[in-house]
């Protein structure tokens, strides 16, 4: 579905050359939920922008459904960490979700309405259609951003540390929401986080990134049961084993750099 081959990104400017991403290669299968985890400042956001076609890589390719990504592709939606800056504060919740759909000329008004209704129901916001984003809590705003992404009917959903700015309880709810949305819609999800527990809890597979300049340090298949919940999954000995393993990898990456 999504293929990344030899991706490199180098920032040049003012006599400084910063290699944010060195050499990344990985593949996402259709319908897969994979997590990218790595130490802070390891170029996760750079990588995601390259995948989303917002940033041109210095070398290597990103392929979506076999086509090379050079600009934001139609089958992809992105959920940003900064929900407060990604939702438009002058639009009501409904209009925020609807705005990308209104550009799809072939889509009927009726269908648009349906998608908006359904997506907002999916994220549990049936009663907030008429609110402005800034009238909602942070967690609810991020739900709106997720609703906007799924209403867009993407094949691939990219999420850039979406829950880094919400409190722990909201975060647990939103994690379960992502699992549910993924199972309901069968969309391919790439979830970027710096939180190891979150990566193990959410993913079918976890890609561990090294420190910057970034490479894929290890790939782990998380063979926990598909039905996960915050209490039992997190108490599962296999869960803690995965967590320990990834934690060691990331520590090793830091030491290797220092």
């Amino acid at each position, binding site marked *: 579905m999504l293929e990344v081959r030899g991706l490199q990104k180098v920032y040049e400017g003012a006599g400084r050359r910063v290699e944010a991403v060195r050499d990344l290669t990985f593949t996402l299968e259709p319908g897969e939920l994979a997590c990218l985890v790595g130490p802070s400042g390891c170029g996760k956001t750079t990588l995601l922008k390259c995948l989303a076609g917002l940033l041109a890589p210095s070398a290597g390719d990103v392929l979506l459904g076999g086509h090379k990504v050079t600009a934001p592709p139609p089958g992809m*939606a*992105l959920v940003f960490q900064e929900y407060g*800056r*990604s939702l438009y*504060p002058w639009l009501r919740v409904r209009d925020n979700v609807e705005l990308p759909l209104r550009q799809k000329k072939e889509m009927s008004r009726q269908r648009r309405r349906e998608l908006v209704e359904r997506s907002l129901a999916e994220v549990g916001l049936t009663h907030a259609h008429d609110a*402005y984003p*800034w009238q909602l809590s942070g967690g609810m705003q991020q739900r709106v951003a997720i609703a906007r992404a799924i209403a867009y009917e993407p094949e691939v959903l990219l999420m850039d540390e979406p829950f880094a700015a919400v409190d722990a309880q909201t975060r647990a709810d939103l994690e379960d929401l992502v699992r549910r949305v993924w199972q309901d819609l069968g969309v391919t999800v790439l979830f970027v986080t710096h939180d190891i527990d979150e990566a193990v809890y959410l993913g079918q597979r976890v890609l561990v990134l090294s420190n910057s300049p970034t490479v894929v340090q290890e790939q782990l298949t998380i063979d926990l049961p598909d039905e996960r919940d915050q209490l039992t999954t997190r108490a599962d000995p296999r869960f803690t084993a995965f967590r320990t393993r990834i934690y060691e990898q990331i520590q090793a990456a830091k030491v290797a750099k220092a």
Partner: protein
Amino acid sequence: MGRVMRRILVNVMWALTLPALLIAAWWLVSDDSTSIYSPPLRTILRTFGPTWDGDRLTHDVVPSLLRLTAGYLLAAVAGIGLGLLVGLHAQLRATLEPVLEFLRALPPPVLVPIIMLFAGIGDTMKLIVIASGCLWPVLLNTVEGVRAVDQVMIETARSYRLPAPARLRHLVLPAASPQIFAGLRQALSIGIILMVISEMFAASNGLGFAIVDFQRSFAIPEMWSGILLLGLLGFVLSMLFQLVERRALAWYHGLRASRRAS
């Protein structure tokens, strides 16, 4: 509900206190004035009604307001249009910025004699004078507003493949609107000043003309009443502006209030 009403009432009382005191002071100090140049406020107010009757309203006040409206709207449309263009193109902005800053620094009334040379002394001249003074604050504020659009909001629009017209209408314009309104507000007071000045230079009607005409014919209380009328006009226009702004920027005031609260 009762508490809200009472708070509004208290606010209104506070807002009216100072004007009431000033008027009272003027009234008392001027009451036994025998100077023909500063007649008692009582006399000024007595002449107000008869001076600004229906005839003079249609002959002087309406033409002034029409010039102001036309010049202001022209400047608003041109300023926002050009501001979007310049704000969206970094290269263009870098080239134009010094020139724009220079032109803005020129006091607008200084342009009146020059514009008179080219545009004569008719309504066109007055319209150009008003528009050319109002243009700069609108233009420069729009440029600033467009330039400051949040990067994440831009990336959101790009990632959802919003085409350029939709980006302009649903992202750039609303995001810049608080700045644009700040420019429009400055432009309004400049516009009123230029309306009066352009009518003082060469005119056969208008508020500015009427005031100068009263002064020349030693109709001093009438002159004072004209100045009062101008003040009132400015006040009413500014209130109208605030009303429009409150509506158009309701989201912005709400957003700011919610940020303050958190």
